[in-house]
């Protein structure tokens, strides 16, 4: 059987399939259906220094092959995460990634510092949430602020830091390079694309937040393109996501340059998607006589 394991910044993943932040909670709910220890990793719900209420409902609307969400980072705060969820998640035998968000630079640094003294394996810095008024995506849209926040967080944290990028920028490669020169250990992308739907009868946006973030299969081609551009631009590992729903999507994303992938919205359609992707990847490698999953990373040949 082919080797599915890989390292990202010294952290070992038994396979390249990670569940995406905000779609999988802290793993408890899905552990009712299958042991989440089968997953390469779990990226936890975005966590902030203090508890956040989130946005008023409705927070979700289905769109052709996708969804818009405007949760707005509802979470019980970092201390609650460490006390109630982290220990349990670690004991399931999968890589625990804390997804960190904040309103100010100091918020991000504080949370990263607090996490340094825990068992968390890795920090995913969410500078790409489109659904909060302060912070979030505003840190992720200019190269200089991305470099700055990466540097500051790296200084305050002993954990590997993966910077999660927003697709809502004009030049994704430039942003990725800024993260790399700020000292990022890895890059993940894409977060959601800002979108909007309006009810033609009430003439009001369906989401109470007016706008939301688009995810699901509709964004997959955009995600593949951006992962490919970023993988060309940097030499640190790239974790790809956005619309992945099948093992074929996962292979495609890895050929574009992702060393691992995350699965988000597809969990809502079929809760077993991550497991089906792991099984499908294994079979694909074996059927094609590929000995190691790493052999397909970035192997798409351009015209």
């Amino acid at each position, binding site marked *: 059987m082919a080797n599915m394991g890989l390292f990202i910044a010294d952290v070992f993943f038994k396979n390249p399939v990670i569940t995406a932040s*905000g*779609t*999988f*909670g802290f793993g408890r*709910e*899905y552990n*009712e*259906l299958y042991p989440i220890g089968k997953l390469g990793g779990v990226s936890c*719900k975005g966590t902030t220094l203090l508890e956040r*209420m*989130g*946005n*008023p*409902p*409705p*927070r*979700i*609307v*289905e769109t052709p*092959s*996708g*969804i818009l*969400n405007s*949760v707005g980072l*509802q979470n019980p705060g970092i201390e609650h995460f460490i006390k109630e969820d982290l220990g349990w998640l670690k004991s399931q035998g999968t890589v625990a990634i804390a997804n960190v968000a904040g309103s100010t630079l100091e918020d991000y640094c504080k949370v990263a510092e607090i996490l340094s003294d825990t068992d968390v394996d890795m920090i995913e810095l969410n500078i790409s949430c489109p659904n909060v008024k302060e912070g979030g995506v505003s840190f992720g849209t200019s190269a200089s602020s991305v470099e700055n926040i990466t540097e500051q967080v790296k200084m305050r944290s002993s954990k590997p830091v993966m910077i999660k990028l927003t697709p809502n920028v004009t030049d994704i490669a430039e942003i990725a390079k800024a993260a790399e020169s700020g000292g990022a250990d890895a890059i993940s992308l894409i977060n959601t694309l800002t979108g909007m739907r309006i009810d033609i009868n009430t003439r009001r946006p369906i989401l109470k937040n007016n706008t939301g973030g688009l995810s*699901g*299969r509709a964004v997959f081609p955009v995600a593949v393109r951006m992962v490919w551009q970023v993988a060309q631009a940097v030499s640190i590992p790239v974790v790809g996501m956005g619309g992945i729903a099948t093992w074929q999507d996962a292979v495609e994303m890895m050929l574009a340059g992702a060393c691992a992938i995350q699965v988000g*919205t597809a*969990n*809502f*359609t*079929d*809760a*077993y998607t991550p497991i089906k992707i792991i099984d499908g990847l294994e079979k694909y490698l074996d059927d094609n006589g590929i000995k190691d999953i790493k052999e397909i990373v970035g192997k798409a040949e351009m015209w």
Partner: protein
Amino acid sequence: MAYVQREAILIKKEKLNSTVFRFTLKEDVISEIATAGQFVNIKCGEKVLRRPISICQIDKKHNCIVIVFEVRGEGTQWLSQCNQHDKIDIMGPLGNGFNTEKQGKALLIGGGIGVPPLLSVAESMECDCDAILGFKDIETTILVEEFSSKCKDVVVMTQDGTYGEKGLVTDALVKKLETNDYSVICSCGPTPMLEAVSQIAQKIGIECYVSLEERMGCGVGACLVCACKTKSKDGEKYSHVCKDGPVFNAKEVVW
């Protein structure tokens, strides 16, 4: 919080009126562990999000659950086109149902497509039940016979008076309260109706439980999408219909 995602078999399909269908679904595990007021999340063809539908009846003997749904949009339209023997991908049983370990006498108040889940309550409530069922008109009136066989007394209200009495469920509620002592009210239906029922219950001091609806993502409590505002001694917060509900104590709901 045990639940499964499985293929159920549609063993009986009935049309209750021009837009409402009743499906009897065979699924061993869900029928085994489901309780009154829980729901299932149904994959509807190529739709990204599953559609939440309440469990209307639980038949443990035949390993079946019954659901009743109204065609509203593309998802329920797809579902209504399924045929006998088809496999339907469902996840459940989900959420917290109604507490049916009650003494005294319970009053069930349903409005429109909120009526079906209360039938499972009538069937499993440990004490006697009365029911008030509200509909728009005679065309949309459903399940009256089923409730009549399970409840002591059933009052049907229609907005236009074409069936039962003319008026709203709250009109019937006020009347009922003049001559009855109820230990608990269980209600499901449109939000304004639930709010009105809750207010009356609170004034009289009767325990009241309501089943809420909100647009959902995962259905299991992981994505925090289906928020509804609740209050407790610690203040107000967003709870989630899929995991904390869909049934809430009415005094905790912020309307």
